């Protein structure tokens, strides 16, 4: 085990609240229905391959896209398709979703078999077929990440076990319950990408995880466990790469440009399991926590399970939840309905009570500069916010708003409770719109 060599700029130290850390993951029984949206990744939505009335089996592909940046979607249960209807995605677009009523048999589809491949392309194709996306939360299709653009040579692999967001412990449970899978997966990813050196980076507040993984690494594996300082956003891709390798990803570039590939622990563990069994991505470890959740715990949930049934399985609510967040409290998305489903990239469901979800009123910026000090990307959120409020979206480009990863540090520290992250997100969306309008000519 080695210590991280560098320390990233800015960041915050929120309370850990990882009360579920030492609770063994519980497998959730079959839900009464699953609703599987066709968009559970960054990229183009999939087209449903099944129709109402079809019988589907576990692991059967039910949605795919011809686009390069997309990941197919599989059925997590065996049963009958009861509906194919549009549902709302968190960004506000409507995507198709397949609703399946399980028959309880959990028959496995014939396509589920360890993938057979002869070359690297074949292997990458089969990883695409597994429907794998980055399980850390963003959900970028893994096969795209594993095939860097031509001319870019990867030489370091960083496995992200930081899990720096408060409350979430699902990656920690993966490290405790399946350390063999993580090490095995790391080796497989090293083979796939031809990378000679790998680091498994874990925050130092998880000594047991560091121990359990370190004990499995033999000399000559070329894998090193790195302990990181406990600070948010330690698990941010660029921050992680800098602290572990000392390399800075330049503005507007990708980690591949500095020869680094970063993957989440759960993602590599899945790759190891997939290459052995061929079972596509149909279930997810999810942390259930928050003041309104009766029994905080970690559960293994089938993808597409309605949030309501997940919470019911965990003993329901001990008080009326004020806000339900999918993901961590820093970057997660507040949900409007418990009918929404668990997605591939869901790693936590937090039910906050009245006290935890207290809303403070936004007031004027006093230019204290706390957001500037906290920003791990060295941006100036206050000026971006001011320009967004005036509608000067083109001006925000000068402040490099596109480098913002929406980690939420600025909003966390703002004494005036300004909606800083939201204005960044807004600026990025408007800039995308402007670019599209310019491309499309006069409009």
């Amino acid at each position: 085990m080695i210590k991280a060599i560098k320390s990233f700029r800015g960041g915050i130290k929120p309370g850990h609240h990882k009360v579920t850390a030492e609770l063994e993951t519980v497998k959730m029984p079959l839900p009464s229905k699953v609703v599987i949206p066709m968009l559970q990744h960054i990229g183009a939505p999939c087209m449903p391959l099944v129709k109402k009335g079809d019988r589907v089996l576990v692991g059967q592909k039910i949605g795919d896209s011809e686009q390069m940046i997309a990941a197919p979607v599989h059925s997590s249960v065996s049963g009958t398709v009861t509906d194919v209807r549009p549902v709302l995605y968190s960004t506000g677009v409507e995507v198709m979703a397949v609703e399946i009523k399980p028959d309880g048999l959990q028959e496995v589809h014939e396509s589920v078999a360890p993938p057979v491949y002869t070359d690297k392309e074949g292997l990458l194709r089969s990883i695409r077929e597994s429907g794998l996306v980055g399980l850390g939360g963003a959900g970028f299709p893994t096969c795209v990440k594993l095939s860097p653009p031509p001319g870019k040579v990867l030489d370091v692999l960083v496995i992200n076990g930081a899990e720096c967001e408060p409350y979430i412990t699902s990656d920690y449970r993966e490290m405790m319950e399946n350390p063999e899978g993580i090490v095995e997966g790391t080796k497989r990813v090293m083979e796939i990408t031809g990378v000679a050196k790998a680091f498994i980076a874990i925050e130092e507040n998880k000594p047991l995880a560091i121990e359990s993984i370190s004990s499995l690494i033999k000399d000559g594996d070329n894998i090193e466990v790195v302990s990181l300082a406990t600070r948010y956003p330690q698990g941010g891709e660029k921050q992680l790469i800098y602290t572990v390798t000392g390399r800075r990803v330049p503005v507007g570039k990708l980690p591949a440009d500095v020869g680094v590939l970063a993957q989440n622990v759960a993602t590599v563990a899945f790759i190891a399991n997939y290459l052995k069994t061929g079972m596509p991505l149909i279930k997810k470890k999810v942390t259930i926590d928050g003041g309104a959740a009766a029994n905080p715990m970690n559960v293994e949930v089938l993808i597409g399970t309605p949030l309501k049934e997940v919470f019911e399985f965990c003993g329901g609510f001990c008080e009326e939840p004020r806000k339900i967040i999918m993901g961590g409290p820093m970057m997660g998305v507040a949900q409007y309905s418990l009918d929404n489903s668990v997605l591939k990239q869901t790693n936590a469901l937090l039910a906050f009570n009245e006290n935890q979800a207290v809303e403070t009123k936004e007031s004027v910026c006093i230019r204290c500069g706390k957001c500037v000090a906290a920003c791990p990307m060295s941006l100036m959120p206050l000026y971006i916010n001011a320009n967004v409020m005036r509608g000067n979206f083109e001006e925000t480009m000068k402040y490099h708003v596109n480098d913002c990863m929406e980690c939420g540090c600025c909003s966390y520290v703002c004494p005036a409770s300004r909606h800083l992250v939201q204005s960044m997100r807004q600026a990025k969306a408007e800039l995308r719109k402007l670019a599209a309008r310019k491309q499309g000519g006069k409009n």
Partner: protein
Amino acid sequence: MVEIIIAVLIISGLGLIFGVGLSYASKVFAVEVDERVTQIREVLPGANCGACGYSGCDGFANAVVEGEAPTNGCPVGGNAVAQEVAGIMGVEPEGIKRTAARVLCNGRNSVSKEKYEYQGIDTCAAAASHFGGHKACTYGCLGHGDCKNACPFDAIVMVGGIARIVEDRCRACGMCVLACPKNLIEIIDKTKKYSVMCMSKDKGAVTRSHCQVGCIGCTKCVRACPQQAISMEGTLAKIDYSKCDNCGECTKVCPTMAIRVMDFGE
């Protein structure tokens, strides 16, 4: 005394040299400006709204003289300006239709349901980027006033949580059409009084569960229209304004009052 005279002479000498130089340069490097550009520029409204598609009124005036833009290309100035521009250009005046923007949603807070409580930046675009906005109906007006802020003519007012356009003030520049994240605003012939005030593509039952005044796709108006001007686009009625003659039969049969008379004067 001598020093003062020297200084005066140097300054007046420099003045003379620059004066001659400048007057020479203004003759030799003079840029010919078509006087029609200046004239057209003078008759234009001068709002620099960009509704014509050019960079402000100057851009439009240049484009007209160069023959790129039509003489009736300024929607804000209307017929009067179009005639004057045509007069300056020495061509037949082409009339333009008086159009105005219309917000095709009637879901005031009192008749529509909310999906969640929104807290954040007070713009429609920001609200719409979170699950499509706080209105239960994903197609409805969110009422944060992005269109109102975009309007250069102060023609939009917020009434009961939705945007309404004061047609007398509206110059159909189309800035609100671009600003609306829900694409609810259309530029419609001002003389046509009836509009389907709903853009919901949801099924009738879903629309009804979200809003009391949405179009539920019952097709009663399609059958009632003597001009056959109404057709169904999925579950939504659409009026073909080239056929509509303002008879008002549609609004009499509409069970949810989604087809309404537009009378938002000053």
